[in-house]
């Protein structure tokens, strides 16, 4: 059974007729063609590689049906940079060597941005707990934690100035 939806991803409205059982992550990857959002578990919300922002909140797009997102707006990893200008967290991941294979990276960027935007007093413990929904298999987490904290601290510093 199909139904029509309009989902806005990174500012572009995608109007599609889709099977009602289609997962949001499949909509993002195969209907919108945005393949930066990854799948690492069997759609059980365990790995976090599919994390995106739904109406501004980090969610796992494998745990949401596309039809539930009709009329709502989504940001994926492709929407973080503004043109050629990378988001500070993308730069920090590169500088801190926070990725190896990179498969978990989009999810961790989306979770990381969510943490930074919602908590102005992040510390290492908060970040480590904040990213428990995202598995990283290569990097061992510490460099990811450092990257997120560096952006959080720079932001706090900016606000103080």
């Amino acid at each position, binding site marked *: 059974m199909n139904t029509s939806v309009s989902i806005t991803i990174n500012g572009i409205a995608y109007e599609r007729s889709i*099977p009602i*059982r*289609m997962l949001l992550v499949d909509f993002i*990857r195969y209907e919108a063609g*945005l*393949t*930066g*959002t*990854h*799948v*690492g*578990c*069997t759609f*059980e919300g*365990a*790995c976090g*590689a599919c994390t995106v922002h739904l109406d501004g909140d980090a969610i796992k797009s494998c745990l949401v049906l596309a039809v539930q997102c009709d009329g709502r707006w989504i940001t*994926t*990893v*492709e929407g*973080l*940079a503004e043109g050629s200008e*990378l988001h500070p967290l*993308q730069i920090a*991941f*590169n*500088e801190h*060597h926070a*990725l*190896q*294979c*990179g*498969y*978990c*990276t*989009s999810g961790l*960027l989306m979770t990381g941005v969510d943490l930074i935007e919602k908590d102005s007093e992040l510390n290492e*413990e908060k*970040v*480590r*707990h904040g*990213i*428990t929904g*995202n*598995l*990283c*298999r*290569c*990097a*061992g*987490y*510490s*460099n*990811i*934690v450092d990257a997120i904290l560096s952006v959080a601290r720079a932001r706090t510093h900016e606000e103080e100035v």
Partner: protein
Amino acid sequence: MKELHAGGIGARLPRKEDIPILRGEGRYFADISIAGQLHVMFLRSPHAHARILSIDVSAAEELPGVVAVITGEMIRNEMLPLPQPSVGGGLPGRKPKFWPLAVEKVKFHGEPVAAVVAETPYLAEDALEAIFVEYEPLPYVGDMEAALDPSSPRVHEDWNDNEIFKSNFRATRSADEHAAHIEEAKRRIAEAPFVVRQRFRTHRCGITALEPRGALAVWDATEGITAWMTTQRPHLQRLSLAEVLKLPQAKVRVIAPRDQGGGFGMKGSVYREPLLVAYLARHLRRPVRWLETREENLMAAGQGRDQIHDIELAADANGRLVALRDKIQTDAGDGCLGGTWGYAMPMVGGMRLPNAYILPFCDIQLRVAVTNKASLCPARGFGIFAPRFALERALDMLARKIGVEPAELLRKNFITTFPARLSTGLGYSSGDFVKTFDRLVELVDIPEFRRRQKEALSLGRYIGLGISTGVEVSGVDNLSYLTATGGPSYATVDLRVDSEGHVTVAYGDGPTGQGSQTTIAQVVAEELGIDPQNVTVLSGDTLTTTYSPGTVSGRGASMVLPAVALACRDLKKKIVRVVANDASMVAGDEEFSFADGYITYCGNSNLRRSFAELAHRIVIGAVDLPPGDTGGLEQRAVFEATRGNVCFSAHAAFVEVSPETGRVKITRYVTSDDAGVVINPLIVEGQIQGGVIQGISNFFFEEYVYNDEGQQMTSTLESYKIAKASDVPRIEIYHDAGTPNPTNPLGTRGIGEGCIAPVPGALGNAISDALRPLGIEITDLPVRPGPLFHRMDVALRDDQQA
């Protein structure tokens, strides 16, 4: 000190491969689609061991969108089974025959039984429900020791027992010489004042990568098969595909995508599913794609370790090791895995058991059993995780018996002369274990810790320190690799320069996140004096690269990078000839410097030409070249290791164990590593950081669990628990006490494979150290809070009663 070239060797250059990935523009397997592609889903066996009586696919075939439903009977005469010569031709043990889909019987829970090909993955999955298979369950063979008993039911019915491989590691000794060798080991142990006898058990766990497997194949009557697949070894996949489909190699092209979401050995084998995908593409004349689910991955791929060690280790009155005996048993699962057959890992692990220590008399016996489980698979460390746990724990226990600090016992017994050869025949080219180890000891301050430990104990707190080491593989010679894998180990690179001076390096491995685009660019930058941003690395495509063994065995830094350096050095000779010829002078290579994008004559800095201008001169303006030279600027180089190269790691773990919960907290973890000449410290430290955390995850959390009927109970990431950020510490990493590797032109050692191996020993020793007042030794993995709490609780009650 040598001046650091910008972005050259030794620079902490942020990785080149990161930017597209960070923008969401990575190109992973799942991101590749071909117009008109069909999708495959596998029906997998619900039984661990059963005869297939019938399969009815008629209802599934009728469902909408279903193009074909395939069973083992339909393909057994259409494609050849494994083994084939390319996969394990040189391996000394048995190789069970198997097709991509089960024929006659199923041998583990999760074995593919049938495949549905449909217009969408959703429809293919629907159709799986409509396939009806009648099974006759057979006895489950699930315990390796019981499987090796002659009375056990057989996993492979054409075999007379379940032993897939055994070895006594007698190296080049004759049978008689080896018998005398064993007698001497026994005699030395019988006469030794200090002996440890202990069984150690390492559970079934592995390094499942975050990106599952996949294959997408296209058939074309002219070009044959083109197959994209997740693999660390595209050339091996090509050879095996050609064999099973009876095609010339020229009609098979395998492409490992530019970005791959981790491998760790899990993507280093020849598996059933991609072989079938390629067959289906030819059979159906349509592109066919299989994207593995995590559930399939956890059921069928990536299970490693799983060994029992019965060790006897002895020292003389001076604390010198005199002999080692070990009866090793391994559970290989069904052994149906192209490349390693479930036993290459324990075989290599047995060879490497003596580790960093002088142990001239070793009696090591390995028996590998087949069982009704998924085949044992390479996992980071390649067979060495379990042996390192067993021996490093035994050393720790031996030190206690002698009454010395474990660090003192290790230090007294390190191999100090190189090249060295173990009693198992394995060679170590170079290193300075004492120097690297001493750096660790300096960092951890053992006497100070002992003071704190005593104080803590008086307050009812259990803190401990554990130290361990590992000498690990880092690029081996062709002969060793041929014997172990059936293929050579050499590294080949093709380097070409375009007319703007941009360098492209192509090689045939399948990297999975090691940062090789960056380290290769750094070596080129160092050698040719150009910006590493002006280097592009191509990998993974068998059409555009020559044979290469793959991204395995710590080969990147120790084999591939030296080949890159050799190619650059040969290329420079041609450039110098052209510069000298153009200037009507005679000059040797060493009279020119390559730096900052310029080639400069050392005798007169006015003779200076840019690299880009010279590239144009040679590639496009290809006239008036020196006699014998032709136009174009490209160079191939091959690097072969002459000996077994190694890296060395020494680890120290500090833990506190809670008597209230049995939880182990790692309070500090320090490594001192010999990674040789480090090309990029950022990447080397990243490999160690990640490798140690994987070891911690294996040690405490991960376990493939089979129930009494052989049902695999851990096929989701909810039940197969991988360490999360809040579970693990930050690793302190030091690589300042390394030694250049003299057997390659860069002095590099590959650290990525082996850095995990000392982890279980360090942690096991630390926890045992903390709990020594309670008489608790860690001998079995994984270590979980529940059982540990129970052991502590019993010991504490006994204490109170006494």
